[in-house]
Structure formats: C-alpha cells, structure tokens
C-alpha cells in the first residue's frame, strides 16, 4: 500500500516551458515533504521542501505547492532547462523523531532543447 504516489512515470517538456510534477499522499501524519532529484548512477540530491504548516515554498526556479486537504503536492519548475532532465522523487517525513523518508516511485522528466 503506497503512502506516497507519483502517478506519472514520465513527463516531457520543452526548454523554457513550465514543468509540473505531481505527488499524492495518503498518510495524514506526514508533516514535511521533500523533492529529490536523481541522475543515473548517483544518489538522490535534495531539491526543495515544504512544511505542512505552509502551502507554498519557492527557491529560484523551483516552487513546491502543498494542498493538505487534498493530500496533494506539486513541484513547478519554470523555466525548464535541459539540465533539469532527471528522475524526481517526492518524499514525505512523519514526526517519528528521526525523519525516516517515504518515497514515491519517481517521475522521469525530460526537457528537450
């Protein structure tokens, strides 16, 4: 039973346009959400996060939106660049004390020139 779901395995976007990656979760105990970016043969690297007390967090070209009532979050990348091509994982942490992460399956983003 997946607690974090990324229903789009892949997404293709043209350079300069907006990329929107979506994530749904089922566990209402999750209180912190993160997006990780992963290139082949590398470990995931942290991209951006949001606490459950907020509904938006912005960092440069990256913005994460959280809709708690819908248990939904999204990552917006604008403008998209070819170097953004990677697998993006949505992850959630619960207040267990040491922040074990629950990951989605990932969405592969391809940004074409």
């Amino acid at each position: 039973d997946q607690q974090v779901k990324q229903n789009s395995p892949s997404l293709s976007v043209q350079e300069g346009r907006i990329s929107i990656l979506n994530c749904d979760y089922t566990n209402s105990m999750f209180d912190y959400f993160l997006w990780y970016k992963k290139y082949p043969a590398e470990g995931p690297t942290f991209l951006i996060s949001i606490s459950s007390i907020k509904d938006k967090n912005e960092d440069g070209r990256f913005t994460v939106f959280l809709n708690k009532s819908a248990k939904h979050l999204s990552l917006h990348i604008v403008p998209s660049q070819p170097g953004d091509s990677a697998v993006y994982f949505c992850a959630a942490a619960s207040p267990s004390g040491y922040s074990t992460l629950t990951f989605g399956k990932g969405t592969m983003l391809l940004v074409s020139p």
Partner: protein
Amino acid sequence: GAGVSQSPRYKVAKRGQDVALRCDPISGHVSLFWYQQALGQGPEFLTYFQNEAQLDKSGLPSDRFFAERPEGSVSTLKIQRTQQEDSAVYLCASSLFGMIGLAGGYSEQFFGPGTRLTVL
C-alpha cells in the same frame, strides 16, 4: 570526505552468497539510514542508526539482512544467503542530527551514490 561514500559501487553475487556493503557517512553526522531501491521503484527504508545504536530496523525484509555501525561512523549492511529478489540499489544516507523532538522539524538527509547489487 565531502559527501557520503559507498563501496563497492557494483556487486554481482551468486545466489546463496553473503555480501557486505559499506557506507561512509559525512563526518560528524549522527544519523545514518539504509534504503533499498528496486528497479522502477522509489527508495524504501530499511534501518536507522543514531550514532552506534540501531533504533529502527523495521524495514529489513528478512533475518538475512543485518546492519551495524559499531563506532558510530562507518556502517555495513550484510545480506546472508542472497536471493534474486535482493537485487536492487542499496542507498545510504546520513544527517547531522538525531532525534528531532516533539517540536518536529527535519534534519536533511544526504545520500550516497548507492551500491547496485545483482544476484544471479
């Protein structure tokens, strides 16, 4: 080193062999996590250490899996009598802090490049 390192990067084992995977966390990081990432899946939690204490091993799939961090720094994940379903990338992550406390919050996890285990 500057980041989390793992060795070996690739390991091929025959079914039934024992393997040992090593993780060198960022120096001074209290917390260390092991995750398993099967093909086409996201990473799944295996076990957590705070310094040398293994506080959570709820994600270990069977008693063939064993992890240790005897001196609170380097950690080893051992898999005995490997099976084909053990084939996956094993990721190690470390974070600076341990227990977050009742106030919540999050201590960022830094991931290593992983060890890709293939069991034939």
